[in-house]
């Protein structure tokens, strides 16, 4: 399973990398949506991207919309991982094409539970 972690916080990327590596996933990182699009274009398809919302340059929502507009990435699942917790924000992200939504703070159980829901657990 190949997972791309997109977050401008190096600490969060490190936490997610550790959790995901423990369950055998191959993890790549990007510090914002623009870098993430470059990583996607340059590598084999990812099964899942974990996407922070607020990031410099290209934010998470823009990344989700860009990915969903490109049929090349049709097989990639997208989960927002964000401090945004309002109903309209969850609605906006799902409408843009995110498959799941995880609110920060999170622990390993929450991440693995969401992976199960996405059929990747």
């Amino acid at each position, binding site marked *: 399973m190949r997972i791309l972690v997109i977050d401008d916080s190096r600490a969060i990327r490190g936490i997610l990398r550790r959790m995901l590596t423990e369950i055998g996933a191959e993890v790549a990182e990007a510090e914002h949506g623009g870098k993430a699009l470059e990583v996607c274009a340059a590598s084999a398809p990812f099964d899942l991207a974990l996407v922070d919302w607020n990031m410099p340059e290209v934010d998470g929502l823009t990344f989700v919309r860009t990915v969903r507009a490109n049929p090349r990435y049709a097989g990639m699942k997208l989960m927002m991982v964000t401090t945004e*917790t*309002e*109903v309209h924000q*969850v*609605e906006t*992200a*799902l409408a843009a094409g*995110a498959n*799941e*939504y*995880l*609110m920060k*703070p*999170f622990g390993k*159980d*929450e991440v693995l*539970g*969401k992976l*199960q*829901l996405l059929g990747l*657990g």
Partner: protein
Amino acid sequence: MTLAVSDFEHICRVVREESGIVLEAGKEYLVEARLAPVLRERNLASYAELAAELRTKPRGPLTVAVVEAMTTNETTFFRDVTPFEVLRTKVLPELFAARPNGPLTLWSAACSSGQEAYSVAMMLRENFDDASRARVEIIGTDIDAKVLARAREGRYSQIEVNRGLPAAYLLRYFAKDGMHWVLREDVRRQVEFRAMNFVGEWRGAPFADVILLRNVLIYFDQPTRQRIVSRMERQLNRGGYLMLGSTESLQDVDTRFDRVELGRGVVYRLPG
């Protein structure tokens, strides 16, 4: 603050007598972690003081608080996913067909704060028509009055709705209230919560077509497991199903249940 051996043993005895749950040596850390909030709430200076009060007032409110603290288990929405798939695709369609006009009762045993029972209620809304759904009665039981009150409220923290609940269901079935999320009233109304203790008279135990007894038997010793499973046979309608946790089985109990593999899950069927 440490827990003396004699106090640990006394607390274990109280928990066992009141709930049937067996705490073995080596679980001192668990007792300390679970009872630390009880010490704080009741202004007790030490575990020794707590054990002393349990000895002098064996039927007092502290006993209830200790048993509640030791028996409350964290749970999640759609825990393990697979059992809900098995219910949706195999068990419920079969029971709907087998009992074309009658009601179906689903019992979430040791339901804690209600996530399992409500997961079933949401799954029914997502996958079955109104008429089928209206035939299903969901009953949650637990020993702990405090968690039952929470379950009835259907009010969950952000951490709780992060656990196992699909985001689409969060939007469809919950309203945000400050830092909490409250389940819609029509979903809450489909579930009835009752107090029930596996040790004792089983007052409040429903007769059911499906019993979810997941991650419960692991807390009991073999004789108690045998008693609970035998009693479950009597509470289950013929042809009904018992569902256990993903790491549990009925290997060490005498039972009439047939082990049936359905899809990716294992269920126990009472012969029809």
